[in-house]
């Protein structure tokens, strides 16, 4: 089924202010709740609504917006988002895959490569809901004035 994504909330407003000198990089986290709308023809649309009415089982989208408000390039650019305890990570979104941690940020890797040690000493492949931290490591510096978004999906436990 084809899925169309519509951003209802406009991620804005935050970046209009005076340039921050001490911290030329600005970072904003926003959470949205998915609303699935299935049209009569079966075409499914997902709307992202502000996370106002949220109940267990709801699908969430965390969107982190970054901006280098300075003039110099920001290198070694790494965004880290600890997954709140009450939500279960459900995969990344957008075009920039993150690495994830299942050990509270001690180590990171792609989810498919991570193993969870079970109580009986065996190992099993990590599941999305094992993820404790999500991290995006940018290969290239963010030039002055550069901005963008990274995103991950989650479900309220």
């Amino acid at each position: 089924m084809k899925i169309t994504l519509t951003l209802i909330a406009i991620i804005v407003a935050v970046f209009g202010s005076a340039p921050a000198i001490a911290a030329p990089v600005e970072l904003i986290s926003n959470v949205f709740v998915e609303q699935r709308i299935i049209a009569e023809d079966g075409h499914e649309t997902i709307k992202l609504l502000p996370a106002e009415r949220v109940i267990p089982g709801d699908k969430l989208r965390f969107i982190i917006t970054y901006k280098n408000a300075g003039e110099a390039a920001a290198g070694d650019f790494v965004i880290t988002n600890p997954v709140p305890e009450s939500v279960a990570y459900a995969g990344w979104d957008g075009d920039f895959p993150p690495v994830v941690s299942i050990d509270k940020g001690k180590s990171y890797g792609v989810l498919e490569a991570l193993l969870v040690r079970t109580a009986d000493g065996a190992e099993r492949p990590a599941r999305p809901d094992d993820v404790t931290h999500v991290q995006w490591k940018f290969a290239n510096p963010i030039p002055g004035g550069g901005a963008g978004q990274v995103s991950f999906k989650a479900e309220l436990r």
Partner: protein
Amino acid sequence: MTSRSHTKLITAVSAIAMLQSTTSLAAPTGTLAGTTVINNATVNFSVGGVAQTPVISPDDSFLVDRRVNLNVSESGSSTTTVTPGSINQITTFVLTNTTNDTLDFSLAAAQDVGGTAAHGGTDNFNANNIRIFVDNPVTGLVGTYDAGDTLTYVDELASGDQIMIFVLADIPLQANGDIASLTLTATAASGGATASQGADLIETVGGNTAGVDTVFDDAAGDTDLANDGKSSDDDDYTVSAATLALVKTSLVISDPVRGVTNPLAIPGAVVEYCIEVANSGSAAATGVNLSDTLPGETTWASGGDQNFRVGGAKALGVCDDTGSVEDDDAVGGDESDPTGGSHSAGVVSALIPTVAAGASTTVKFRVTVD
């Protein structure tokens, strides 16, 4: 369903007992309502090869709202078998709170009006004096109704927990196989304080409010709709009664002219009456007292003659001689066995202690034609 032998449920209810001492064994179903979920991200970066102070995003938080979900279901899967006239007959239900919040629940029982009963058959009578009591999971018999179960609403049921609910009713004098079906409905109510019944919850309409909103997310029950904050299920009482039928036949034994050869019912003839008592019900009839007034044109002719017998069988249309021999009066050695029989002033009486379900027994005696 009767309230006996629900070991599993008793175990489950023990968890609620624990809850009231602030420990719950059942896992809550989902993040509890009122929880604030806070998210923030951190960016590490360097400028000109020099690591800079990491920047942390402002907290982005949201409040978890209340998803109301509950289930009422009959405990067990069979009808409650009752006898006519019995009181305080119990059907048992289980309420499970799968809301992400501790809630009270108001309870109501409604008599079904006709229609297919919970376990088949058709509802055809109403039980009397319907009462609802919630199991006290701390004291007394836990999981089984006892006098300590006095609460008429569910108080402070934690997320993921369940509790048993007993419906008591009195059964009118109904016939075998009659069915009274009833439906128990639980309605989610605000938790509030312990030992105080909260108001029924109302779904938040319109937009988000600053506080915890309420969203109904329950399935349709027997008599309630989906997403109405209610759940309902039916159960029934089935009457198990004795159903007695009498069949009386007569046979001319002898007459004064022909003797026992082709005797006719002429004056002086001996006639044997055979009364068969058959129980086609599903319960034993006990203490059956049978009395028969002799026709005015006849005279009692039994008593001490081996022909007044109670408790025998009927074979080939005739009462056999397997019954207990009775004499005329209601005293003496013949009354020491379970059956009794006597005759007084043209009325024959017989006492049969038990006629089992599906069984029959007989009374036979002789008269002469006046």
